């Protein structure tokens, strides 16, 4: 190891990054765009869903029912029909999400103490919205017909009492953004030299494998830290995400995680000599899992058991758990040590594997 040689490599790599405004721009702007999109747009909640009504009863009761729907913020009356065909067509066109079908004789049956039945038709193509609208609708109908509640539920939501989605999206996003860029950038940086052949020149130079790697990886590690700092600043200051735990614990874990992501990039770079393939590989083994199989958006405990095991092989899950624990729950090392240990072990394993594969080529 020679400090001067490392410095030379470092200088070359940094200059290359600084001279490529597109790469640098994407690396710095993209996390902010992701944060803004996620911060503003990830919500499954629906307001003012277009409602269609087919009222065949035309009684005070049926009118009151419709009013109870439109009085809430969840539904807005979009269309009324005179026959079932109109409802069908509107659902197919997608101009309403939910249609209320009130049969003739509803009010009369109710007076006779029979069990009257009305129908709610939902556009089920996007089930998450459909299920939510369905439960709102059920609640509205139930409220039209009150039964004295014998059991009262007092709910308290912990860690995020207002259920603001930004509060859990931002700490989760730390894990996703760090999986999106550092691995991709490192993998491309090394594979690029492979593709253009300049890596052969590095191999015949006095630069050793570790020196090359340190000089190569350090700038990307720095970019990763810059990204996380930006996301944290915007998250905590702009989106006002409260910080319940210790920032230093989060930063320390973030440091380990950055190493891990850079290590994954290195590993990808030893698998292929083509930048395009490196990018697709990075997409498949880092970005998509960190997005979909980390508990960031989709809860892991609802997945089938085999896929829960699949999620365990990607590190984003451990970090996101940890980051949410620190930010929202104020959890300390005592609660989170397992995640941290797993993360460190994972990082060590990835690095060992990557360096070993890389060394084989050099030596």
């Amino acid at each position, binding site marked *: 190891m020679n400090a001067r040689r490392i410095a030379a490599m470092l200088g070359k790599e940094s200059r290359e990054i600084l001279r490529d405004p597109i790469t640098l721009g994407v690396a710095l702007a993209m996390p902010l765009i992701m944060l803004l999109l996620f911060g503003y747009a990830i919500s499954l909640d629906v307001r003012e869903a277009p409602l269609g009504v087919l009222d065949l009863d035309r009684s005070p009761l049926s009118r009151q029912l419709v009013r109870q729907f439109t009085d809430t913020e969840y539904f807005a009356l979009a269309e009324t029909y005179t026959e079932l065909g109109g409802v069908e067509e509107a659902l197919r066109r997608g101009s309403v999400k939910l249609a209320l079908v009130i049969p003739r004789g509803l009010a009369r049956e109710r007076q006779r103490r029979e069990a009257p039945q009305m129908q709610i038709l939902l556009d089920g193509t996007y089930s998450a919205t459909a299920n939510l609208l369905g439960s709102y609708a059920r609640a509205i109908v139930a409220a039209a017909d009150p039964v004295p509640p014998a059991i009262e539920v007092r709910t308290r*939501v912990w860690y995020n009492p207002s*259920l603001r989605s930004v509060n859990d999206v931002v700490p989760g996003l730390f894990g996703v953004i760090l999986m999106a860029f550092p691995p991709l950038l490192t993998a491309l940086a090394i594979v690029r030299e492979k593709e253009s052949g300049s890596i052969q020149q590095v191999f015949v130079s006095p630069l050793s494998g570790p020196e090359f790697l340190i000089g190569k990886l350090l700038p990307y590690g720095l970019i990763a830290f810059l990204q996380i700092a930006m996301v944290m600043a915007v998250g905590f200051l702009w989106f006002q995400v409260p910080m319940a735990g210790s920032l230093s614990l989060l930063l320390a874990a973030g440091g380990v995680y950055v190493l891990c992501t850079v290590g994954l990039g290195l590993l990808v770079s030893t698998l292929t000599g083509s930048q395009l393939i490196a990018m697709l590989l990075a997409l498949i083994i880092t970005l998509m899992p960190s997005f979909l199989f980390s508990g960031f958006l989709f809860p892991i405990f609802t997945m089938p058991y085999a896929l829960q095991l699949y999620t365990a092989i990607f590190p984003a899950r451990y970090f996101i758990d940890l980051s949410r624990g620190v930010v929202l729950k104020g959890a300390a090392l005592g609660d989170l040590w397992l995640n941290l240990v797993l993360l460190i072990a994972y990082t060590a394993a990835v690095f060992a594997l990557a360096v070993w594969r890389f060394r084989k080529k050099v030596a």
Partner: protein
Amino acid sequence: MAVRLAGLLAKEMIQFFRDRVMLVLILWLYTVEVVICTVALSFAVHDLPLALVDLDHSPASRALATAFAAGDAFRVTARPASETGATAALQAGAARAALIIPEHFTRRLARGEPAEVQLLVDGSNSTVAAQARAYALEIVEEHARDQAYRLGGPAARPPLGVALRSWYNPAADLERFTVLSMIALAALMVGVIHPAASIVREREIGTLEQLRVTPIGTAELFIAKTLPTLLMGLLAVFPSLLIARLFDVPLAGSLGLFLAYTAVFLGSAIGLGVLVAAIARTLQQALLLAFFGLFPLMFLSGTLAPVESMPEFLQRASVVSPLRHYMDVILGIFLKGAGLAELWPQGLALLAIGTALYAAAWAVFRREFE
């Protein structure tokens, strides 16, 4: 012209289909990734780990506990003896919600007073928490209604019945949506990344320069660079169709219309890829730019979260995402059996987006190429 184009096309085709690793990765995106995501991803909460604290130890409290354990929504993972135990389970993440049935629960019920139970929900995933709360309220409400109806005297009136029907997706799960959205997503990624990479690669190794001194024009280059991707994209749909079949996704509409729309959609994706290639100097830039463009398009398409739930300005911005229109098309054709009569606005939008992207790419390219 035709001969030149044929020659160039043959070269592109050979190059494309010779790259085995690339083909495998594309197929992976279209098949394995679709299967994994469809099996795994669901917003619907079930088997939520619940800590149950019964401080009353009575038949009534046990009946309520049974109501919670019986449904799909919750799975009782811990039965701590006290509220502190429940708190610890939440903090450690061993439980996502806790139900606490206090002492004197039965006595209050017997006296006809409202009996209170406490529900603690871990809000660290707000979507899950909101659903957990709704499920718990529904379970308690139903349980209370059951009990009241059973004990109720002559005043008890049958409740207003609601038949809820989820059309186009009777199981009301995310499966069908995920299969179709993952297929669309794969088409978008391949459609953007591949042409961008293949053009910029030629620029990087200098062969674009060589093409420039041949009689080949911009139009011919465009066609030769985009046709293989278009072909591949259309062919890759077929294994995906098998997978859709596997998950019992019906094809209610016409296959021909679906393929036609897919071609138009791929066209707009490829247009974006060509535009990226026109701007980028190196492959690295091209790949990052492609990524930069893909992400918002994907985001604004409604594949991750419904567009209707977004703020107004993002809803308006979503009009430029070809994926958003294509999602309407693919869901409409497969699930609803929609035809051209319902889907023509999406077709026009896709054509407009594709044309605009091509025109922009053309303008940038011509400056360099001619």
